[in-house]
């Protein structure tokens, strides 16, 4: 991973998150949504969600989702050794949900997250906000709110590192650990 280079430092990421918070606020107003439930996808999505949750001053506690049990690549990579429980503080039935992830790539992570949320109940609506929207979609999933839309080569990957300090790094797709969680974060 030595050929990684930093695209954005913590300060730049934070200002991007500020902009996203503003966009979310506008969208909530447009749709007349009050008291939404924010859910971050582990791990990067949770870091961002914590910031956004603070910024927007949401009343409902933040939910976290670990999509390890919903991944479609289980048969290719086996069990994620660092799985955490998902934690949704309240029932999702009839709630408006803001789903936060770091990088939207293939769309598979979001597919897994949607499936998991629906195993908890039937939400009224879901807004998807991602820090980075990159090319390479394999499923018909689009974000409602994005922070950044970088132009990347196919073999490049972009990763949110953190939590302290946060940073966005770009590297080429080599040096992957077969047990790691790369695809989950990347997808």
């Amino acid at each position, binding site marked *: 991973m030595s050929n990684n280079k930093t695209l954005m430092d913590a300060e730049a990421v934070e200002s991007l998150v500020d902009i996203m918070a503003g966009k979310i606020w506008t969208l909530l107003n447009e749709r007349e949504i009050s008291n939404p439930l924010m859910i971050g996808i582990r791990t990067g999505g949770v870091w961002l969600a914590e910031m956004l949750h603070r910024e927007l001053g949401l009343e409902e506690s933040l939910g976290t989702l670990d999509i*390890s049990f919903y991944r479609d690549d289980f*048969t290719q990579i*086996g069990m994620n*050794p660092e*799985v*955490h*429980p998902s934690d949704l503080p309240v029932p999702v*039935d009839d709630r408006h949900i803001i789903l936060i992830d770091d990088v939207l790539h293939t769309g598979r992570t979001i597919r897994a997250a949607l499936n998991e949320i629906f195993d*908890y*109940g039937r939400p009224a609506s879901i807004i998807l906000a991602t820090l980075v929207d990159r090319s390479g979609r394999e499923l018909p999933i689009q974000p409602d709110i994005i922070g950044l839309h970088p132009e990347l080569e196919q073999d490049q990957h972009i990763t949110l590192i953190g939590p302290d300090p946060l940073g966005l790094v770009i590297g080429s797709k080599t040096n992957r650990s077969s047990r790691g969680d790369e695809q989950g974060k990347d997808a």
Partner: protein
Amino acid sequence: MSHSNRTLQLDEEQRLLHFLTIDGLGKEILTEILDTSEGFTGVSERTIKKVPLCRGKVVANLFFENSTRTRTTFELAAKRLSADVLNLNISASAASKGETLLDTLHNLEAMHVDMFIVRHASSGAAHFIAQHADRGVGVINAGDGRHAHPTQAMLDMFTIRRHKGEFVGLRVAIVGDILHSRVARSQILALNSLGVSEVRVVAPRTLLPSDARSLGVHVYHDMEEGVRDVDVIIMLRLQKERMQGTLLPSEHEYFSLFGLTERRLALADSEAIVMHPGPINRGVEMDSKVADGAQSVILQQVSYGIAIRMAVISMVIGTQNLRMQEVAG
């Protein structure tokens, strides 16, 4: 032993291929099982108590010995992983027709079973099945003879960790029929592997193995001494047929010497927890007041059992999947 168990149960990257015994498994993999189980604990509390992880996989409960409780928790665990479950009560069918264990195994493999969960009266049965199973088929030991019951031991470890946080520094007393107990053997191995500071066994000599100390425990014949200052008391089940005869004179004498009463519990650490693999013989192994008391965590053990089994099933199926891909690739 440790070495052969390690190579049978773990692949080159230390991933779980089968789960047959705690013997040979280090702190790292045991902790991974506990951590993965934490991830599954929430599933039972949701509207849809299922995750799609093992969808399309077929898990066969191969029970040569009746055990509704254990079979049910494995069945529930497999179903919550979205696997299909076959329940085979072999004692009633194949064995009585003279079908050998290997015949049964190969017949089921021909039906493309992905996992065997095995309960058998003979020590080493799960090893035997793992050694003869096709590549890509995982085996989980749900209790073999007096040998091992590793998922029970892990749910006990899970319960202990939930209550005590760490294993280091803990003193644990296991009371009762150690000699015939596969649960106790697996618990002792797990506790020592996870690094507790002391494991004690408390029993009359007729219920202890010939060389109990070689298992890595301190031996007590006096209940009061044995539970003094411990953080965890694990009571074992004593089978009725062992209570009269050459091992013990009577239930009455056993309870008076080794039964867990409030008075004896008071000798342990004030925050000690009381565990039991169930079902309890009230008034033989422990007083009802203790079983239902504030320090008892017996019912939690049961609910954690499902998360542990979900973890182990998914870890084994995951590793076996990888193995098949290596073959295909």
